[in-house]
């Protein structure tokens, strides 16, 4: 797995949580994309990207998230993005219209449980 100073990856229960930090722009978005894709094993249910500690995000970050969504979609893996209300990242994603495309959450806990719940097999009615 490649490492990147702006990325911390933790995984459990099949959901990978990647916490990003610092500034994401044209200088590092491609490397971060690469690191994130390398951090999601084939058996993972999905990826949560936590932008809570990101201090700067622009269209390079927006492109990055759109590409990740696209690539994970091929493999039927879910992507959820955590961007707290009132945060700078949230504002940028909203201006860019990405809140209509991506699934945004305000905490890692809700993002993770959304992925887990959507994966639960529907219970068969008792005979």
């Amino acid at each position, binding site marked *: 797995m490649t490492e990147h100073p702006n990325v911390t990856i933790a995984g459990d229960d099949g959901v990978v949580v990647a916490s990003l930090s610092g500034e994401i722009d044209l200088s590092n978005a491609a490397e971060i994309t690469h690191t994130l894709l390398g951090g999601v094993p084939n058996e993972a249910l999905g990826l949560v990207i936590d932008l809570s500690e990101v201090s700067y995000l*622009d269209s390079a970050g927006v492109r990055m998230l759109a590409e990740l969504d696209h690539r994970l979609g091929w493999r039927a893996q879910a992507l959820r993005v955590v961007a707290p209300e009132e945060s700078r990242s949230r504002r940028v994603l909203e201006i*860019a219209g990405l809140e209509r495309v991506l699934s945004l959450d305000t905490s890692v806990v809700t993002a993770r449980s959304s992925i887990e719940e959507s994966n639960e097999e529907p219970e068969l009615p008792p005979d």
Partner: protein
Amino acid sequence: MAAGWAYREVVVDVDPAAKVVLYTDGLIDRRDLALEEGLERLLAAASSERGRPVEPVCRELINALVPSEAADDIALLAMERLRVRDEAFRLRMPAEPAELRRMRRALGGWLRGIGVELEDTNDLVLACAEACSNAIRHAYGPSAGTVDIEARRDDGAVEVVVRDFGRWRQRRGQDGGRGLALIEALAPSMRIERSERGTVVTMRRTLRGSVSV
């Protein structure tokens, strides 16, 4: 000054462009000159100096009104409201992605320094970074050129101009327009002028928090 004198407080409206001259009576009250005539001379001398810095005005008023052997001590205070003009922000950056961070720091620091509020600052820095990123992505070949950034405050707005000296290629991929869409949302009066000599992106944003000068 006799004890028991009462001083009145008065409020006088002063035209913002006016010069205010305060003086002690030694300036015009002279044995060889009627008070009215002294006042007239002072007004004439002060009016003739309109639009000049106040320091030489003080010297010239004293030269014009006071004979070399002054009988009384004289104090003179001249005030003028200066129109504060911000120095414009200018930065030339190499057209390299790794330079964007430094540009954001510099522009953000300048905007905060002239009193622009945080959200306006963040949005203007973002809009500028998008224009610079576009120039980096589209204007030059792999042997990169430079991008010039200029910003100035203009009443309640800030104008940021990003200039490159290359020729934008046809955009490749479907994501090329994301940056421009962001700029348009942040600075709705964006204009792009393309010419043989390069591309100029002009962004103007009316400040949310109006800043008093």
